[in-house]
């Protein structure tokens, strides 16, 4: 029995026809994780005992009471708190932290009957584009184990790509779902800001952070977004809007759909292969009735600087809560309280986190606030307006997810600015708050490339519809990486 190449619908069919059980499915997921982890290193804590017990009990639930994701295994990014399951955000400062409640999305996974198998590696506090900033391990890209899986949700994307688990949750502040999804050849959705509750998501930059699903197919992605969306009293920024059935939006019809193709997303620095793959994808969509036109998002080049100022400022404030007092790592050497704070934080945080905390502290400090922080907030308004203007005429905006495919581990880790440039095509979306998906659309030297489809506020339905049409017309999502073979099925 194989679970790794099956969709949610196929797995449910196998359960219904008694070809397998939820208990067996869960066991197989752990077998595969254990077989592949020495190579991929995607998981941190595993939830084996509880998941095994839960799965057995779930096999007794009548079919009539089960939804489309009932009994299916899922992995959760390690910045989403899980009651009784170690949650570290891949930071030393949270080593051994055992949450006493579940994030709202984790409660929703439970309601949907999903089985949480474990926590997934990431860049520390979601700061990074390669997973090299994890305190615990470096996740490898299943397509080429010498390359990075992307970040910060690198573990979440790699686990799906390797077939360790068919569903994961990630979080996206500047591209942290879409960039690793592109690098690992899987489907990753950053929903509209406010669509999914952030309660229980360890905050990096609160005005940008959003949780979203990573899967192998568009349909499964839509099903998982159905399960986690919705207003939450515990998150005052969660939007009180109706949640449509995203899976029902996959009608296969994009006749007359207007696609804007921003010329800035094909500028210097974007690789030829990525450009070509997107142009080929646009042809596929045109053949199915869509109308493509070149547009301009004139403030795109300012997005990177705007993002790093705003995100770092918010991070410097958010991460001030890690002081060693109530939870997490505590220094051994401190003569007084000030030393206690300073040593705890210096020993507990990695370099990239310190860099961003310092950048943010600097941008917010007296004398620099107007020049940096407030200036960036104003430019954010202009970037948002670019999208507002474009969406008056177009239904979606399409471009590459990343300028290049995955790079080698260690290649750019010492060069923060080059690393930041990875997110140049994903960051504007977070600043505007609109939804966007990355789906596989090609390869360069055996490494996947991603197609980014950006939608209007709260119009994930159209994004999914377009993504699904492309997926049905191509077979990129059926290709599997080198880690696929040779492990327990």
């Amino acid at each position, binding site marked *: 029995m194989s679970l790794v190449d099956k969709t949610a619908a196929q797995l449910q069919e196998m359960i219904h026809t008694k070809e397998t059980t939820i208990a067996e499915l869960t066991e197989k997921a752990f077998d595969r994780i254990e077989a592949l982890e020495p190579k991929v290193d995607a998981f941190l804590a595993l939830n084996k005992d509880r998941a095994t017990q839960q799965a057995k009990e779930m096999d007794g639930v009548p079919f009539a009471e089960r939804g489309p994701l009932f009994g299916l295994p899922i992995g959760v990014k390690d910045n989403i708190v899980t009651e009784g399951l170690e949650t570290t955000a891949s930071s030393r400062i949270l080593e051994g*932290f*055992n949450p*006493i409640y579940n994030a709202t999305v984790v409660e929703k996974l439970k309601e949907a009957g999903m089985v949480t198998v474990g926590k997934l590696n990431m860049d520390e506090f979601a700061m990074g584009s390669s997973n090299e900033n994890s305190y615990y391990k470096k996740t490898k890209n299943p397509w080429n184990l010498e390359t990075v899986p992307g970040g910060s949700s690198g573990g979440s994307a790699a686990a799906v790509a390797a077939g360790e688990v068919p569903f994961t949750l990630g979080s996206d502040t500047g591209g942290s779902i879409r960039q690793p999804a592109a690098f690992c050849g899987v489907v990753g959705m950053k929903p509209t800001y*406010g669509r999914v509750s952030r309660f229980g998501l360890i905050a990096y930059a609160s*005005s940008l952070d959003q949780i979203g699903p990573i899967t192998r197919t568009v349909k499964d992605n839509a099903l998982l977004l159905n399960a986690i969306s919705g207003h939450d009293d515990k998150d005052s*920024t969660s*939007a009180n809007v109706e949640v449509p059935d995203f899976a029902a939006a996959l009608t296969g019809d994009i006749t007359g759909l207007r696609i804007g193709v921003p010329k800035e997303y094909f500028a210097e620095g974007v690789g030829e292969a990525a450009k070509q793959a997107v142009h080929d994808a646009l042809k596929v969509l045109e053949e199915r009735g869509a109308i493509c036109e070149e547009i301009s998002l004139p*403030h795109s*080049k*300012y997005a*990177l*600087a*705007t993002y*790093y*100022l705003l995100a770092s400022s918010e991070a410097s404030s958010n991460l*001030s809560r890690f*002081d*060693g*007092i*109530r*939870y*997490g790592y*505590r220094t051994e050497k*401190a*003569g*007084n*309280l*000030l*030393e*206690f704070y*300073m*040593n705890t*934080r*210096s020993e507990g*945080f990695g370099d990239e986190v*310190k*860099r961003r*905390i*310092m*950048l943010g*502290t*600097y941008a917010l*400090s007296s004398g620099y606030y107007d020049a*940096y922080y*407030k*200036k*960036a*907030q*104003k*430019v*954010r*308004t*202009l970037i*948002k307006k670019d999208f507002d203007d474009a969406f008056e005429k177009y239904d979606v905006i399409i471009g590459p997810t990343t300028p290049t495919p995955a790079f080698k581990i260690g290649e750019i880790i010492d060069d*923060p*600015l080059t690393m930041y440039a990875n997110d140049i095509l994903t960051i504007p979306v977070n*600043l*505007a*708050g609109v939804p966007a998906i990355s789906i596989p659309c090609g390869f360069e030297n055996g490494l996947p490339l991603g197609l980014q489809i950006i939608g209007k*506020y709260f119009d994930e339905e159209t994004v999914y519809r377009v993504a699904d049409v492309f997926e049905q017309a191509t077979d990129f999502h059926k290709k599997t990486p080198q880690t696929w073979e040779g492990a327990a099925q």
Partner: protein
Amino acid sequence: MAKMTKEEVIEVAHLARLAITDEEAEHFADQLEAITNAMELLNELDTENVEPTTHVLQMVNVLREDKSIPGLDRDLVLKNVKEHEGGQVKVPTILE
């Protein structure tokens, strides 16, 4: 653009409650200078009459009824505290 000095980095690190060595401060000074220089790009734009965006959705204050609800159990809250005694968190001496 202004040069980021080692002294400035030490000052910022102190504000952020991070202990750093002289050597680290020099390393971070170079990197932060490169990063802040790249941020100068924003000065190309005239934003005189642009309103700042703090939040992308049109939202007003979110209020709830002023009604008390039970908090978390104290023993549970103390679960992740490294040192505690009599239901209280232990910290280093702050007053001599």
